[in-house]
Structures are given as structure tokens and as C-alpha cells.
């Protein structure tokens, strides 16, 4: 029988990892909620953001937590531009085309990174990389705790943007009814691009939070995308609260099932949930009824 302190540690770990999963899922769910497409380039964009953090650290000597303030606007701009000037024109208004374009983008990004950075696995060494906060015999990794808090802050901020600002209102209007939104004078293409930019910005923040404890190679973003898809389905497509709750649930399930069933079988817990949600509650925890 496992001791309680190990179960508690696994629980805490699951919550902390789950918060970052949630942040990655936020971008995905937002793009789905508004554009009604699955962005297959999500994983590759995350990898690109992680490499950007790596470059900032190696070349500019910029701490990952300071790089947030550079990379978030940068990735917002990149996301905006890619949607507005690549995905949108290439799709000719057909959703299935958008899928293919994002898939193609993911291949291009991944291989560009492979060409530019070679295939080595890289990590950055920050002074606080190994620091821990000790709470009752639990060693909680400081960077992971920061990531946990920051993920909540970003989700809250995103929620505020959507609820309070004009842009947010426009995004919600387009998500509900794009023809109607266009009729009242909302620039739908602009809103699409802004949403895409917000999704990319979430990934930039996630990358800055991940890099102090994780590593990057041209494929490392993919490890998170499948989990993010599951979270989006669990939380309800397009729901921010759903992504947050879903992320935490998946994080805990992954950690505990890993502990009890072994790491190899631990992944089963995630996909079991995925199947159960699809069977019993296809709209997800917070999803609007279709």
C-alpha cells in the first residue's frame, strides 16, 4: 500500500501539471469556439514558442519569466498574421480546407525547427530550476507552482477580455452567429485573426512556464497536444472554465493512474475519460447544449 504522503505529492503534481495543460488547451478551445476548427498546428506552435524561450535565454540572456512579456505580444502578432494572411485566404471559406492548411503549417513549422535547431533535445538551466517549496514533507517545485498560479491568472485575464472588452464582445458575437455579427458591422476576418492570435499568445505563455522544468526538441509540443484535445472535449468545446477544470482533472487523473497502474498504463486513465465523456456527456462539463 502506498503511503499517504506519496499520494498527496502525486495529487499536487497532477494539479500543477494540469494547470499548464489547461493553458495549452485554452488556446485550442478558444479557436474551436470561435472559428469552429481544430487547429492542428497547435503542437508545432507550442514547440516554436518553446524554442523561442530557449533562444531568448541563450542569446539574449533573458529569463523565461521575463521573456513572457516579449514573446506573448510576438506570438499574438504571428498568430494574427498567419490566420489573416495564410489560413484565411488559403481556406476559401471551407472548414475542411482550414484543417488541411493548419496540418500543413504544423509540418512546415516542425521541419523548419528541425532544420534550424537540429534534432537535439535542449533545456535551459535557470538558478531556480531546482528550487522547491517545502510544505509538510512535500517538495513542491517552485517553477511548477509559479506555472500553476500563472495559468489561473491567464485564464482569468482571458475571461475578462472576453466579458468586458469590445473586442471580447465581438469575439463572442462571432462565435455565436458570424453572419449576424457581420451584419452589425463586426469585421469577422479581423475577429478570427485576433482569436488565433490569442491562442498563439496562450502557447507563448505556456512555453515560458514550461521551459524552466521541461525540455524542447522539434517534436516536444506534440506530447501536449493530445492531452489538450482531451481537455477541450472534457471541458466542453469553446469553454474557458471547462478548459481550466478539464486540465486540472486530467492532470490529477494522469498522475494518480500513473502512480497506481504504472506510468505506461497511466495514460489509459486519460483516454478512458475521453471515451466516457463522448458517450455520456458529449457536450463536455461546461459545453453549451448542441
Amino acid at each position, binding site marked *: 500500500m502506498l503511503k499517504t504522503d506519496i499520494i498527496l505529492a502525486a495529487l499536487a503534481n497532477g494539479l500543477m*501539471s494540469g494547470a499548464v495543460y489547461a493553458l495549452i488547451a485554452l488556446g485550442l478551445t478558444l479557436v474551436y469556439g470561435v472559428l469552429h476548427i481544430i487547429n492542428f498546428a497547435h503542437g508545432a506552435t507550442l514547440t516554436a514558442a518553446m524554442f523561442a524561450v530557449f533562444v531568448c535565454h541563450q542569446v539574449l540572456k533573458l529569463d523565461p519569466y521575463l521573456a513572457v512579456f516579449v514573446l506573448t505580444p510576438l506570438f499574438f502578432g504571428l498568430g494574427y498574421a498567419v490566420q489573416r494572411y495564410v489560413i484565411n485566404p488559403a481556406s476559401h471559406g471551407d472548414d475542411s480546407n482550414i484543417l488541411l492548411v493548419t496540418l500543413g503549417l504544423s509540418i512546415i513549422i516542425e521541419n523548419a525547427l528541425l532544420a534550424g535547431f537540429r534534432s*537535439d*533535445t535542449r533545456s535551459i538551466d535557470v538558478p531556480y530550476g531546482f528550487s522547491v517549496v517545502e510544505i509538510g514533507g512535500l*517538495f513542491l517545485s517552485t517553477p511548477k507552482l509559479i506555472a500553476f498560479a500563472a495559468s489561473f491568472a491567464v485564464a482569468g485575464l482571458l475571461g475578462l477580455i472576453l466579458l468586458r472588452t469590445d473586442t471580447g464582445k465581438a469575439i463572442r458575437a462571432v462565435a455565436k452567429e458570424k453572419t449576424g455579427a457581420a451584419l452589425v458591422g463586426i469585421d469577422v476576418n479581423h475577429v478570427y485573426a485576433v482569436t488565433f492570435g490569442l491562442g498563439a499568445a496562450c502557447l507563448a505563455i505556456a512555453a515560458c512556464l514550461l521551459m524552466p522544468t521541461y*525540455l524542447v*526538441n522539434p517534436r516536444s509540443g506534440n*506530447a501536449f497536444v493530445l492531452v489538450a484535445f482531451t481537455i477541450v472535449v472534457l471541458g466542453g468545446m469553446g469553454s474557458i472554465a471547462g478548459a481550466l477544470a478539464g486540465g486540472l482533472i486530467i492532470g490529477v487523473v494522469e498522475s494518480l493512474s*500513473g502512480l497506481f497502474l504504472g*506510468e505506461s498504463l497511466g495514460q489509459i486513465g486519460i483516454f478512458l475519460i475521453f471515451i466516457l465523456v463522448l458517450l455520456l456527456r458529449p457536450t463536455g462539463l461546461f459545453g453549451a447544449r448542441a
Partner: protein
Amino acid sequence: MTPTSRTPTSTTASSRRQVLAGAAASAGLIAMPGLLRAQAPSIKLGILQPVTGALAQDGEYGRLGAEIAINEINAAGGVKSMGGAKIQMVFGDARSNPEGGVSEVERMQAEGVAAIVGGFASPICLAASQAASRYDIPYVVDVGVSDQIVNRGLKNTFRLGPGFGTVTAAALDNLAKINEAAGRPAKTVVIVHEDGLFGSGLAKLMQTELPKRGFEILETIAHPTPSRDMSNVALRIRSLNPDLLIPSSYYAEFVLLARTMQQQRIRPKGVYAVLNGAASNFRFVKEFPDAANLVMDCNHWADPRKARTAAVKAEAEKGGRFWLYNTPLNYSCVRLVADAIERAGSADRAKVTEALTNSTFADHIMPYGPTKFVNGQNTGAGPVNTQVQNGDIKVIFPTEFADAKAVFPAA
């Protein structure tokens, strides 16, 4: 090729300077006809490595070793028995899977290679060497440790390095010796392994062999590749508190585990890896000197006694690259093939295969001695025990050429 065909006067839009340069060049060629006659046809050598996909890092360092060897051979005048013929690399990307390896072998066959070197992973080596055998192309495996590779009776397949059985037997014997020498401080073991063919096979072997050598296995923990987080594994290790940890994972997962263990302040008396992706990788040692310190590994490694090792290492490390075992192994394999072609005096596949079969090549940089192939396996091949000591990777076993003593148990 005639000297005049080199001059650009035939092109209509050439400047006067080009015409003059071309004329000067052709005049030079006419003056030295010997140069042209000496230009023997080049020998095509297939280099097969996975440079995209999951194994890309290993493939890239393998290609680097082959490149260094080919450049060195060509700079030294090529294959002398064939009039100084240069070796020309025909590179193929195995894309980290057996199918990719086979399709590249087909392409190399179409291009007319004299031999193929590489493969890296066992599944790729198995499939690619079999495909090469259909065309009787000599195939030299660089790493692929699966014992099946040389047990199929293929006449074209050779392996310079040691196989799985040899490596693990040496690893276990050396572990027992190191423990014995330190007064048997290690009794309990936890095995952590990736759940693929490589890690699981190794774990199974450990489970039967370690108890015979007086170790008690507390638990065997499997994990998938890729893993996002190794916290659970670290927690289990902490609760089991073993004397010795034996990890068999690929690079990224071992790095995650070592970092998490450092963070959770888990310090077993020793970490002893077998064919590990990280413990003999200078990138890990340089990036996380504390987490890597005193990790032991039993793996392929270049012979530090050989004079050329330092030169190859210096060449490999140019441009911020790191020293991995893939580079010296591929370097040595290419040199082995070049030696066979040299002795055969021909790029004919049957003759090269025969020259390889009878090879007693000693000019490689691995710690093996002259090659002696029995059923394609170089019988003198063996692994080396290394330990990370203060930011450097030292050889601690075999004692004949160790450049450091094992630090065990870790304080």
C-alpha cells in the same frame, strides 16, 4: 571530359574576365594532363541514418562521424589501390522507422553504392540489412545492438560494435565488480525502463540476472516514451529508497528523471545505466552538471588511448556539437569499409564483402583491437563503463584503459 569543355567561351553571356579565367584554367589543364588522368571514378558509399523523427538526434551524430571519416580519407588521397578514387557519400534518411530505412536502401541500390553503413536503431538495421542482402550490398551496422541482426545468416551484414548479449553481460559483471570493490554497499535495486523493445528487454534480463549476483530488485518501473513528467517515478523511487538505480530510457526521459530526482533530493548510492541515452551524452553533462554527476553507464565509447580519438572528437565538437558514441562508431565503420575497398582494390560488392569477412582492421578508434568477424559479428567488440565526474565523462572500466576510478558509493 576534355579540357576545352571547362572553358566558358561556349556560353554567350560570359564576361571578359570569365573568358580569361576559363582560358587560363584550360591552359593549366593542358599543361598538366596528368591531373586529369589521375581523376579516378569516385566510389559511392551509402550512409543510412534517421535524421528526422524520434531518433533524429542519434542519426545526426552518426552522419557526422561518417562525414568526418569520408573527408579524412579523401583528404589523404582517397582509395590508393583504385588510383586515389574518392569516396562519395550517398546519404539516406531512414526517418526513424524500418520502412524509411528499406526505401532508402532501394534508392542507394539504384545509385550503385559499393556498401552501406549505419541504421542506428535495431529495427532499422534489421530491415535495411535484409533489403541490402537482396542486392548483395555489404551492410555495416553502426549501433543496432539486437542480437538478431547477426543471427540470421546474412552474408552481407557486419557489425563492428558489440551486441546486446555482450553489452549486458559485461554491464552486469562490471557492476558486480564495482560493488565488490567498494565493499558491497549496494544490495537493493530499482529498475526504471522505457516500455519499448529496448527498455523492456533490458529490464527482463536484469530481473533474471541481478538476483544471481546478489542484488535484490525492489521494483521495476516502466514508463512510456515520450513522457511529459517523471515526478511519479521519482516519488516511487523515494519511497522505495533503493541503494542503486538502473535506468534504461532514452535521452529526454532520463534527463527529466535525473532533474526531478535532484529536485526531490533523492540520492541513491549509485545510478548505473546500461546503454542509456543520456549518461554518455556531453550535452546532458554540460547542461546539468549536478544532476549528471557520478552517473555511471555501460555503453559504446571511443578508446581514449588511441591517438586519432582526440582529433575526431575535436572535429566533431566544432560548431557547438557534442561528443556522443554515435560519431566514433560511424567514423570507425566507414574507415572499416574504406579499408576493405582498399584491400579489395575494387568497389565490386562481392569483393568488398569478402574483404570485410577477412578483415583485421585495427585503425578504428573503438576499444576493440583488430577486427575478426564471425558470422558478421566482430568478436573483439565490447562496451565500456563510463562515469560522469565533475563535468567530464571518464572511463572507469575496463581497467586497462580507464582514465579514472569509479566513485561509488556516491557520497
